[in-house]
């Protein structure tokens, strides 16, 4: 008898040596107990996972929003500062003054125009 067939025989003997184990009376109740205990754990885990996912999604949205907003420094540069405001005021005053002179000149020359 060669080694291969001896090994096959040994495997068959092993099959016969492994007894058919009969399930105990506690088999089904134990399964349901395990399912219940794992169910509680699973419920807590799912709730925790869902909360984490929601928080992550919120943070992502916030980051995306901030990414598309113009940078704060640029807004400061674009915003008028005190000297700009003064300059604008000065220009407005000189414009008013010039306008007054022009209108006065026009008033003086008006009769002449009427005389023509």
């Amino acid at each position, binding site marked *: 008898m060669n*080694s*291969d067939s*001896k*090994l*096959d025989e*040994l*495997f*068959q*003997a*092993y*099959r*016969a*040596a*492994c*007894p*058919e*184990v009969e*399930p*105990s009376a506690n*088999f*089904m109740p*134990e*399964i349901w107990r*395990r*399912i219940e205990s*794992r169910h509680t754990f*699973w419920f807590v885990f799912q709730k925790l996972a869902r909360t984490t996912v929601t928080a992550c999604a919120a943070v992502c949205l916030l980051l995306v929003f901030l990414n598309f907003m113009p940078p704060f420094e640029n807004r400061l540069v674009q915003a008028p500062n005190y000297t700009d405001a003064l300059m604008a005021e000065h220009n407005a005053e000189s414009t008013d003054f010039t306008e007054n002179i022009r209108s006065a000149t026009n008033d003086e020359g008006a009769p002449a125009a009427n005389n023509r």
Partner: protein
Amino acid sequence: MLVEQDVIERARAGDGGAFNDMVLAYRKRIMGTISRLIGRPEDVEDVAQEVFVRLYYSLDQLRTPEVFEPWLYRLTVNAAYDYLRRVKRRNESRMADLSEQQVLMADFLASGRRDGDDRQKGQVREFVDALFQHVSDEDRLLLTLKEVEGLSLKELEKIYRVNENALKVRLFRARQRVLKAHKTATADGNL
């Protein structure tokens, strides 16, 4: 199949009664398979319960009722694999605490407690268990399913979702290793 497809569908939908029917139909077959996969009758029920708990939680991933049996076998193989790894870790840590002499004494006392047929069966299990130490746990399970459980390559292909040729190669290599260990053991007079 041992249950109607309708029962599987109902169990998938969350019907506890249908799940009970499934367990009752398959538990003996699964316990027999586990007994041969792990070779330790005292832990068979515990591993079988783990299989059915995993089945309960993974039923919604089952695509069609037709593939239920290979699916159940896959769960069984995975649970047996986890058990073997756990036992190996536990044994390594226990054995590390014992001297060689103490281990021999423990083996002698354990074998002395058994008698007659039980003792012989126990010796066969221990010997095959020792041979399986020469292959990985994955190969041990594959070899047991093929050589001891008598599953065909087609059935193994469905369980492992691996090409038949790849399975053949793995089986051949595992068998060669076990054969080599068997030759060495018989030459040393262990059997």
